[in-house]
């Protein structure tokens, strides 16, 4: 048998022979792109131009300092689209978050209380949309919203109302100042996405010990008091987690809008990620797109830090 010293050497050798390729890989496919993304934001870079010798930066792809960032506040057409996309992304997020919680939390409580035999069934069905391809979801909802032959308008006509003339393409249609296309998109998104938060809430509710509820019951708490003073405080860490995850995924909204509306009508549903995508890969304007992606990264980072900062449970049970 080997001596302890040589055994340790063999172990260390094994650990390094695994970790070295992983670290090199991460340098090429993670660290390098990160640094590159930051640098790109300071250049007027297009892959269509040859540029300098290092990563095509310089010469025909000149260094422009903060010009990309300053241009975001200017009145050029791309800057207008970008600001519109920031507004749309925030509008989308601000609407999705409360609506999602208003559906998932009550529904989770109802499912939690129902009979064990049906509980699993409802949970499984409600989760189904989340695993289906977002592209297919976008096409199905596009068909549902079709003004002539769509399901939604025929339902509306059946109950004797007049449907709007187009759900996804009328730039004049607003409800409470929110573009109708945006509302249609949010409904489709909620349909696809609510299963995640639902199963997380159900799991959290199942984790609340029965003796706490029993104690409140003995003290004469009614259903409402039980919810506000027992369930909700105990759900606080889960609630924060769910909020942050929902915000993060909403900020990165892409597929549904790209396939259902391609950002229209009149940029009313263009999200930040769509704006970044089309500037980088359609217009080959990668310096500008990289600067925009930095702004989105900053916003996402802010919420990630909030999560790490506050996601320490105050409750032990």
């Amino acid at each position, binding site marked *: 048998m080997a001596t302890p010293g040589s055994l340790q050497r063999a172990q260390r050798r094994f650990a390094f022979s695994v970790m070295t390729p*992983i670290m090199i890989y991460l340098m090429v496919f993670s660290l390098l792109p990160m640094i590159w993304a930051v640098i790109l934001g300071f250049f007027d870079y297009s892959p269509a131009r040859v540029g300098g010798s290092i990563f095509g930066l310089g010469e025909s792809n000149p260094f422009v300092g903060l010009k990309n960032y300053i241009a975001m506040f200017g009145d050029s057409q791309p800057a207008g689209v970008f600001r519109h996309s920031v507004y749309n992304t925030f509008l989308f997020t601000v609407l999705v978050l409360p609506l999602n919680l208003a559906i998932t939390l009550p529904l989770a409580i109802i499912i939690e209380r129902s009979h064990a035999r049906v509980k699993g069934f409802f949970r499984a069905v409600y989760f189904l949309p989340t695993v289906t391809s977002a592209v297919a979801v976008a096409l199905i909802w596009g068909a549902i919203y079709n003004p002539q*032959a769509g399901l939604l308008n025929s339902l509306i006509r059946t109950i004797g109302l007049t449907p709007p003339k187009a759900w996804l393409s009328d730039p004049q249609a607003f409800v409470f100042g929110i573009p109708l296309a945006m509302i249609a998109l949010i409904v489709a998104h909620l349909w696809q996405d609510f299963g995640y938060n639902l199963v997380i809430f159900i799991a959290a509710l199942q984790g609340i010990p029965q003796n706490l509820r029993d104690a409140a019951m003995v003290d004469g708490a009614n259903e409402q008091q039980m919810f506000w003073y027992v369930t909700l405080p105990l759900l606080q860490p889960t609630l924060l987690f769910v909020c942050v995850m929902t915000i993060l995924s909403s900020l990165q909204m892409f597929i549904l809008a790209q396939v259902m509306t391609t950002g229209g009508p009149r940029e009313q549903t263009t999200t930040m990620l769509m704006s970044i995508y089309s500037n*980088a890969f359609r217009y080959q304007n990668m310096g500008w797109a990289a600067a925009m*992606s930095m702004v989105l990264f900053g916003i996402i980072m802010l919420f990630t830090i909030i999560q790490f900062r506050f996601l320490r449970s105050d409750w032990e049970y």
Partner: protein
Amino acid sequence: MTTQSRTTYVHLIGAVLRYTVLGIGLSVTLLPFVYVLLSSLKTPSEIIHIPPTFFPKAPTWQNFTTIFGDPKVPLGLFFFNSSIVAVARVGVTLFTSSLAGYIFARYEFGGKGVMFAIIMAQIMIPFQMIMIPLYLILVKLQLIDTLWGLIIPAMIDAFGIFMMRQFIEGIPRELIDAGRIDGASEFQIYWNLILPQLSAPLASLGIFTFMATWNDYLWPLIVITTHERRTLPLLLTWYSNSHGSRPSLTMAASVIVLLPIVLIYILFQRQIVANAATSGFK
């Protein structure tokens, strides 16, 4: 009315209300699935007929046979593209996650803490931030417009490594010591003793990676340009755009793409839901 019967009465109303809400939720959740299925069975003239029908008057497989018979849509090829990328990414992710997770759980070496922090930092980096330089790197490596370009940038999964490390820390050290006494090499210990213990977390991670890859859209949209190399989600948008006047075909194509994933979901529904509930990642 006695108090006793009043409480039963209130309970009954509560139950009726609860199941009504659950039933409405169920219909709203399932209606789009039913709608796409029924629409895919309608004739091209019926689907644009006004007023629209819900149930097809004369159900037909015509849309499906049109797609299967379309020489520009070699479905087998697109299923192959999607499958090969998904299988490769699942295989590589399971291997690297379990191996690195094992190293972090059971080995001591200089720089371990720093390396672990570097890997965990990956979780916080949104993909949209690095996608532009990543594209430029793939151009340099001549991997653009290849299926490799969909596999190679996704070989290390920080969450997978974290998950495996947590799990392996629960495996008794005696198992590893016994392996060493038997003279097994370090890799043999990992392969023969550790890996067989990991079937549950490997299954969870594998299913999750498969679904994420299968439904991936943004990165394939950036990387793939040749029609024959498209994955299924790309095929679906292309097909929909090029058959805009025939929505019944698009609905049938959607059914074809949805069906495998729905079948997998039905088979593994319990693990998938439990997975999402405990990890909370999307």
